[in-house]
């Protein structure tokens, strides 16, 4: 999917800005970031994480990771799942 990205607000009405793909989402550095990028980013953009912060506590983030595995079938191994939940709670938790 391609989106047309606007680099300046002045281009709003012009619709002439260069086309750009999904812009990379920079997550906070920390242990587990790579597991998040590799696993979560395979099925959805990482802005979902920023958008859902910082109101989830550790249990809340753990439930989200579990939901992705159990309900959405995400192929995440146990080690990565723990690492992801810890990273999210520490960096994007309440």
């Amino acid at each position, binding site marked *: 999917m391609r989106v047309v990205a606007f680099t300046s607000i002045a281009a709003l009405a012009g*619709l002439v*800005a260069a086309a750009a793909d999904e812009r990379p989402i920079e997550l906070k550095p920390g242990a587990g970031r790579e597991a998040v990028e590799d696993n979560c980013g395979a099925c959805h953009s990482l*802005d979902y994480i920023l958008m859902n912060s910082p109101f989830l506590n550790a249990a809340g983030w753990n439930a989200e990771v579990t939901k992705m595995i159990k309900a959405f079938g995400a192929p995440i191994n146990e080690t990565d799942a723990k690492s992801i939940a810890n990273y999210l709670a520490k960096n994007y938790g309440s």
Partner: protein
Amino acid sequence: MITRRRLIEAAGAGVACAGGGPGAPLLYAATAGVPLSPGVPAGLDGSAVLEALPGKQPLIKLSYRPPNYESPLQYFDTPITPNDRFYVRYHLADIPNVDAKTLDAKTYKIVVGGEGANAQAEITFDDLKKFPAYEIVAVNQCSGNRRGLSQPHVPGVQWGYGAMGCARWKGARLKDLLDRVGLKKEAIEIAFNGADGPAFDQTPDFIKSLPVWKAIDESTLVAYEMNGEPLPHFNGYPARLVVPGWTGTYWMKHLIDINVMTRPQGGFWMNPAYRIPVGEFPAVVRFMTQETATTAPITEMVVNSLITSHADGAEVKAGTITMRGLAWDGGYGIRAVEASTDGGQSWSAATLGDDLGRFAFRPWSFDLTVRSGKNTVTVNATNKRGETQVAALLFNPAGYHNNVRQSVTLNAA
């Protein structure tokens, strides 16, 4: 209509709003140029951006993949939402490519059949247009519109006010497509699938069902036009379901499969997704074959309204100003919109505008006198069944049906 100048002012000015009639500049509170609704999670600051998908005006990007983009408040200044300002909502990331023409209208077809049907049929785009055509003006609102305002916050796409729009839809009656195959007496639900799918094959495909009675309602359409034009790609080209009165989750985009079922559709997107606690909301129409002891599928929209002329925190001149907005419900029609300037102790009737049908946005306007300092205005809509908006949130874990009365504070100089 929004002019380029207005949008630039809106983005650059931060917090400012001049009230008044048409033609007055509309300036909205904005975070780094993005007009977010007040109360959404702080994580949207810097994450949400104004971006235009192909064929669209800039919308507020909440997520790239799958694409979830809401309409800024400025786009609701008319009761019909233009196609290029209409919000975009997908559940799964593998969506038809807008460039590759994977949904070429020449090869597109809808398969109609299933164990509850007497026959199977394939309906091409040309076939679809040969059915008698009907038009209806109807609001499409995401079940989770205003989820981002939920307190406490709940996980999901953090929509503000803009996961909704109202269009004039044209298409064939779903009933007429179903008549092509005939329903067995055992048929209880009709399930729908679109051409979009998951990025990973173990993820449940987005499939939704309707009870037969709603599917064969004369207002339920398979639409191929929106506001007199082909559907925008991101709103379901070439054809989508239109289910007036019911939340957007049932309005399947890129419709390719209609499955007549003799048992309840049992997929993830029917249960546990899109569920409300039994008994929490007004007794609206029920989808009995999907209910459990504790949860029911969301069905009709609850009565609601939005102030569109002024954002919270807007700067106005003391004196008489006109506030404008929209009201809508699940298809009973709007009976009244009232505004209060004293915290809900007394209410004055707003003037209702053009009636485009019971499923449409109903515009309203309200003249009020503002004094120097802060003036808080609260708005409440009532539908023709006498249902009103709620004073306090009816919390539910998915953040659905948020129809808390909206208040804005105007700063008058």
